[in-house]
């Protein structure tokens, strides 16, 4: 079938045939779907796993490694076929937009080829978010968050204050005698927004902390206002959530409430075991839990699947509120795809020799400019020098395209232009943000919210703008490249 399609393209759209666009789209899309499905299959939750157990995903690093390897292999195989013919270098007729079209197709292929890891991780997240509706998940997260007050996950407010986070509201602050068990009123729930142990590439969802704060206040207000029935209902609901996942408790909500609900001080309470079947070593009736220097009696006869639910709902929370793949992380994959497309395109329109010289020159330049920037000790000198180098390369290149003499070293400069233009927007942003740092010497309330501050708060958006900028400048650059190609070599 591919041969038939390729033959059709060869006769009608030689550029598409040359790029092998159909097989490449088919392969890259198929691999993305495959890795998504692998992620989806791997993303299932195991409700027997508890946060108190040893849980490590050994497969994901291996799959990620192979997805990167797959990208490299597919790229190399594609280039072998793609580089077989080069109509542009052979001076076959081309209209002004042909090179731009070629680059856009390369771009799509490169981006798709860079997305295998993302597809896998997206699959992991999608599977986890598919268990429950958003509303139900939110509700259950609230239940588990509030129940955490009666577990050793609850924290003393003075042990857990994020000074940088102004959203955290500390209620009922009572001085604490650390030799005595703390009152439940002095403790805070372990909300999901404070969860800090997400693996690499996940971003914390700071805004969820507001919800934690609300939940914290709600459970405390039930205790303060003597709403025992609400507590019983909450614990029953928690036990029911466990049953939904075949996780049984050997205590009712009412009994559990008796262990923890002792108004008005709420200083006398007991823990129960927070994971399901007891380990053989736990075959004793009473123990002591130590957390935050608090010695709290623990009744090991009873258990609830808190550890299991906490662990698995954290996974669901992560998938929903701190997903691997969101608009911030996608920019990294897009940038990788753009980078590859520009490297391949520049090689295609110039030569291997000039491509390599340009690459080495830029690396050497990076080091030299870095050295100068250190010597001048100026925050923006590095960016300014790079912008000047970029402008210099552009002036040289464009002077050749309009001149009547030979190309000289414009092939090297063209490579530099194609690559360095990608850094113009980030460098200008860097200069703007760095120059605005003077405002930080002022108190927060006196700082004007300038464009620089907006820029500083919207780095991912700036990179998206940069990608748009690349798409726009490549249109004009590709037209000039066709003109440049016609210029005499020497």
């Amino acid at each position, binding site marked *: 079938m591919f041969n038939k399609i390729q033959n059709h393209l060869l006769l009608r759209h030689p550029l598409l045939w040359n790029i092998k666009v159909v097989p490449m789209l088919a392969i890259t899309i198929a691999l993305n779907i495959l890795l998504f499905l692998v992620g989806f299959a791997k993303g299932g939750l195991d409700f027997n796993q508890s946060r108190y157990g040893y849980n490590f995903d050994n497969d994901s690093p291996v799959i990620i490694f192979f997805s990167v390897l797959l990208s490299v292999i597919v790229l190399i195989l594609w280039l072998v076929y793609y580089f077989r013919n080069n*109509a542009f270098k052979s001076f*076959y007729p081309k209209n002004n937009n042909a090179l731009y079209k070629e680059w856009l197709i390369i771009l799509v292929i490169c981006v798709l080829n860079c997305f295998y890891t993302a597809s896998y991780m997206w699959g992991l997240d999608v599977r986890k978010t598919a268990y429950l509706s958003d509303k139900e998940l939110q509700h259950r997260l609230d239940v588990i968050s509030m129940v955490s007050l009666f577990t050793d996950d609850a924290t003393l407010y003075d042990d857990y204050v994020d000074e940088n986070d102004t959203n955290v509201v500390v209620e009922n602050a009572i001085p604490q005698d650390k030799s005595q068990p703390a009152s439940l009123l002095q403790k805070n729930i372990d909300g999901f927004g404070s969860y800090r142990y997400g693996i690499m590439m996940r971003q914390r969802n700071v805004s969820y902390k507001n919800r934690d704060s609300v939940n914290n206040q709600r459970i405390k207000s039930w205790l303060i206002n003597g709403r025992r029935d609400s507590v019983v209902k909450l614990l029953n609901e928690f036990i029911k959530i466990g049953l939904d996942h075949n996780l049984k408790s050997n205590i009712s909500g009412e009994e559990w409430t008796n262990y923890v609900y002792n108004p008005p001080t709420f200083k006398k309470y007991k823990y129960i075991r927070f994971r399901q079947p007891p380990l053989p070593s736990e075959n004793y009736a009473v123990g002591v839990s130590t957390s935050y220097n608090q010695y709290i009696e623990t009744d090991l006869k009873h258990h609830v699947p808190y550890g299991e639910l906490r662990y698995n709902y954290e996974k669901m929370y992560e998938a929903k509120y701190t997903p691997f793949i969101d608009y911030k992380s996608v920019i990294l994959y897009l940038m990788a795809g753009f980078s590859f497309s520009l490297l391949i395109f520049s090689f295609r329109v110039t030569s291997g020799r000039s491509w390599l010289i340009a690459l080495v020159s830029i690396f050497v330049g990076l080091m030299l400019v870095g050295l100068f920037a250190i010597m001048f000790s100026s925050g923006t000198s590095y960016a300014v020098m790079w912008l000047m180098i970029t402008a210099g390369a552009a002036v040289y290149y464009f002077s050749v395209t309009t001149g009547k003499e030979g190309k000289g070293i414009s092939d090297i400069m063209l490579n530099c232009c194609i690559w360095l233009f990608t850094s113009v927007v980030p460098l200008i942003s860097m200069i703007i943000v760095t120059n605005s740092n003077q405002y930080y010497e002022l108190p927060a309330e006196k700082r004007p919210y300038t464009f620089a501050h907006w820029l500083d708060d919207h780095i991912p958006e700036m990179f998206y703008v940069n990608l748009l900028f690349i798409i726009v400048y490549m249109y004009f650059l590709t037209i000039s490249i066709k003109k440049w190609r*016609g210029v005499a070599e020497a």
Partner: protein
Amino acid sequence: MNQIQKHFDEVRDLLRFGDHAVALKRIIDFTLDTEDISFYRKANDLLNRLDASPSPEEAKAWLDSLLDDLYVTLSTRTIKPREKILEVKNVKKEYYPSAFALGPVNLELYEGDIIGLVGENGNGKTTLLRLLCGELYATSGNINYNFKYQDLYDLRTRLVYIPQRTDTWRGPMYENLVFTAASYGYKPEENHLVVELIIARLGLRKFRQHSWKSLSSGYKMRFELARMLLRKPKILLIDEPLANLDILAQQTVLEDFRAIAKSPFRPIGIVLSSQQLYEVEKTSDQVIFLKQGVQKNLHDTPNQVVENESIEPAKLKPLVIEFESEWSQSRLSEALQPLGLEGLQFNGGTYIATFKGETTQNAFLQEVISQNIPIVYFRNISNSTRRFFVS
């Protein structure tokens, strides 16, 4: 007899004398001239039937039949007058800091003409070709292309330059040619037909699916020519096309050049460089000799003829004979004095004898016979660029 009639009569003679291979090439040329897909199909059908090794009579009948059809179609078409497509005026190319400089070079190229460039190595032949194809810029002077083009890239799509060392083709040869044809806008339904015809035209039918590495230098050159034909250039510039070819292949390639250039409906201008003086002189309409970058033309251009007549109307060209003999230089000099010998050089195993303008070639031969001078080879190089090499 008009020009088309003449072309067809030549092919009929070839068929009459059983030279089917050459006749087939010319018939393919006519087929391509029609630019008619029904003729492409007929010719391809013929090629397939010829692959089955029919009897010579059968083959002749088929070829005659197609030739007649082609004549009916082409004889009604008018041939456009040949136009000047290239004019080079006082072009110089200097390389800094090298002392070598090419030029000033002046030349004119008309559609259907072939210009041969000859000269020793390192005297500017390749430089001139690269100047003409736009690969090099001229330090001074003008190169004017008398056809329309949008920009420099567009110009260079119409000038096909085949360097001595061609780039490697990747993938099957046939696929490359189909790609070229598609890139040059051949319709999907005619693409394969035209490619097959051009492959057959250059005797490459057996090598369609070969890879570049499995081809000899001669066949590589032929594939380059096949690609060039698909590109329909205004000017073809070829550097040393005869290098690495055996003598038969050289003659075939030169004959192909001549047929391609002189096509009545699709004429192109060709500039080629070569070390094969006599073969190039036979094929070319003008031969330019380059020595140390300085141009000498074999034939005077119309302007130069008028100029020379006005200055030295009575001056005759000397007779220059190249020959090989076992006699010594002094003995030969003495023997040839009666003919008005002006100079006798010994050059690489051959003698170059220069006589006064009134001496004729026949007089030289009579003298050789009368004095019983033993010669194993001789050539009159009075009108060959060979004389520039030895002067």
